């Protein structure tokens, strides 16, 4: 019996610290571990006792790549606990800043973290030697996403302008209009990105995932909606914990999420695209169709094209919001704490991010629970590798190892996020 193993000690081009271990005995995969060794930071523990208004800024520090997602999920959760909801232009501004995060995060992942795998480069700088124009376009696209976040949020990493109830200061019409031309350029660059990524070589690899994403009657989902799946899940976000559970495994500092009685599921671009295709703008839908991308997409390697399509959408949605923007009279609505529980679930670039808080009459947090997208996808990542490796055992070790890394990078895993949720139970 021949044994073989594939080991990546420190997975590159992802956020955070993790590795892969695969053991193969006699042509079957006996063990797959996506090993997260990034140290836990205990956010859910030290959020206890903090004021409910502090949660957006504190939880942003869980992830430097998707701070808006953390701010949004916590803000919505706090507003639901306090029984208020933000509407009109303030709500539109929230969608606008989320567009900026998607553009920035997707451009980063498409070009700097993922494309080098398809084209055979170690990194984007190597890639720039042969594909200089594409990389320059990528950097500009990413920059425009960051400019949008900065304009609405104050700065690109850990923005300071978002709060429970709205914003500290709202932009003027002219400030937003100033970005319109750049966003039009970004939309065209994103359309080209769809065409470019569609030409990449994709491994023949499909799996029957249960896709889980937010769904909203009128919009492609960012901040609000119910949770649905392709296998009949249809629940308000407040029922999330009745349907999903977290498991603790020895080799990972992140919890693995499973759907109760059903097991692994998939969140992120593929899930959103497959469940909400008709909510994309016509141009984004057309761009997808033009390259033969129609739901259901079951090949996670093609998530890079889906991210490109979503970038087209985010640019168009941002342009729409800017076009229709009227500066609201007040930057925020008043929010008064009351004892209770609140839920928030929004679509981070990597998939749904769930928050639940219990607060007391003084507005202090009594209990916090956060489930990031990467820990929800961990099981699917491992199952992908289990299916992916056996058919490719004839590949040389370095090539197979690289392809396994790529299979994990399909998920745009954010390990810094996934790690911080070791649940602590106080007696």
């Amino acid at each position, binding site marked *: 019996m021949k044994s073989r193993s594939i080991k990546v000690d420190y997975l590159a081009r992802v956020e955070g610290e993790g590795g892969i271990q695969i053991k193969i005995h006699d042509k079957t995969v006996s063990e797959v571990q996506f090993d997260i060794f*990034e*140290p836990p930071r205990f956010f859910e523990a030290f959020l206890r006792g903090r004021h409910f208004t502090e949660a957006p800024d504190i939880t942003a*520090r869980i992830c430097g790549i998707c701070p808006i997602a953390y701010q949004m999920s916590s803000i919505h959760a706090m507003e639901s606990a306090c029984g208020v909801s933000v509407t009109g232009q303030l709500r539109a501004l929230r969608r606008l800043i989320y567009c900026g995060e998607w553009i920035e995060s997707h451009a980063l992942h498409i070009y*700097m973290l993922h494309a080098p795998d398809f084209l055979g480069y170690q990194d984007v700088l190597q890639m720039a030697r042969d594909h200089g124009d594409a990389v320059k376009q990528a950097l500009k696209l990413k920059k425009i996403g*960051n400019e949008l976040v900065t304009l609405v949020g104050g700065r*690109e990493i850990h923005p300071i302008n978002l709060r429970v109830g709205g914003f500290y200061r709202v932009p003027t019409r002219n400030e937003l209009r100033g970005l319109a031309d750049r966003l039009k350029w970004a939309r065209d660059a994103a359309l080209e990105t769809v065409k470019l990524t569609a030409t990449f070589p994709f491994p023949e690899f499909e799996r029957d995932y249960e896709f889980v994403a937010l769904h909203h009657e009128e919009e492609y989902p960012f901040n609000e909606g119910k949770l649905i799946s392709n296998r009949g899940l249809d629940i308000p976000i407040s029922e999330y914990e009745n349907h999903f559970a977290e498991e603790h495994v020895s080799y990972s*500092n992140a919890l693995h999420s499973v759907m109760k009685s059903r097991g692994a599921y998939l969140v992120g671009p593929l899930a959103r695209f497959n469940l909400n295709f008709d909510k994309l703008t016509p141009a984004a839908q057309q761009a997808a169709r033009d390259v033969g991308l129609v739901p259901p997409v079951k090949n996670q390697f093609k998530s890079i094209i889906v991210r490109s399509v979503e970038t087209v959408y985010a640019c168009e949605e941002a342009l729409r919001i800017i076009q229709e923007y009227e500066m609201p009279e007040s930057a925020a609505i008043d929010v008064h704490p009351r004892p209770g529980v609140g839920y928030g679930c929004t679509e981070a670039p990597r998939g749904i991010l769930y928050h639940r808080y219990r607060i007391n009459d003084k507005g202090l947090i009594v209990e916090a629970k956060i489930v990031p997208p990467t820990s929800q996808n961990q099981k699917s990542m491992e199952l992908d590798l289990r299916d992916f490796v056996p058919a490719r055992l004839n590949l040389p070790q370095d090539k197979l190892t690289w392809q396994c890394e790529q299979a994990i990078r399909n998920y745009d895993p954010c390990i810094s996020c996934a790690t911080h949720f070791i649940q602590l139970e106080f007696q």
Partner: protein
Amino acid sequence: MKKSRKPKLAVWKFSSCDGCQLTLLDCEDELLAVAENIEIANFPEASRNVVKGPYDLSLVEGSITTPHDAERIHQVRRSSKVLITIGACATAGGIQALRNFKDVREFTSIVYATPSYIETLNKSTSIADHVFVDFELRGCPISKHQLVEVLSAYLNGRKPATPTYSVCVDCKRRGIVCGLVTHGPPCLGPVTQAGCNALCPSYHRGCFGCFGPKETPNTSSLASYWLSLGMKNPDLLRLFRSYNAYAEPFRKESEAHEK
């Protein structure tokens, strides 16, 4: 003249959110120029390629929170000619240093899942608590401009020009009306180091101390002023106890307001 070799840069991560190293990738306009002058030799977030040390310049993100990392930072130091820490985690222990005020052993012993899987230290500490640090760049996150300044200073063999004065100086320069003496949201500006260009005050919001204590901050005077205006001790405690909670002046001030 013989062209000298490019200096080798390494970027290391400890306990953090990745935001400060992302700042390097967020230098969209400067990234290709930086790469022309510096060999990015070890930067896992950006590249699979790892060039062996020693490195001329190491940027270190994150705080020390595990026994393994407490060892690893010594290896990083040994392989680096110049070691610069980037961000509040690396320079003060970060938001995760909030554990330092609790008995972590007690709360990990009642961990919900399986505590034996988790290896963690009682305290989250700065890099300088463990090894010699050549320069500390503040911020949660760091400023892109200050990062480029630090890299450029290094390449040109000079000291980085980063201010150690307070946020107030930038506020005055920008002509922002002082919130502290007018409408009065609690503002840490007078005791916080500049670097953000007075960002929060320009958004009608009080400074919450991302860049940590300025040189010789008078935190107790600021705190008594707020107490005289009716602010309560628990609120003061939380204000000083955030992203730079374990930086000494902020730590002492928050402890002074503990029951």
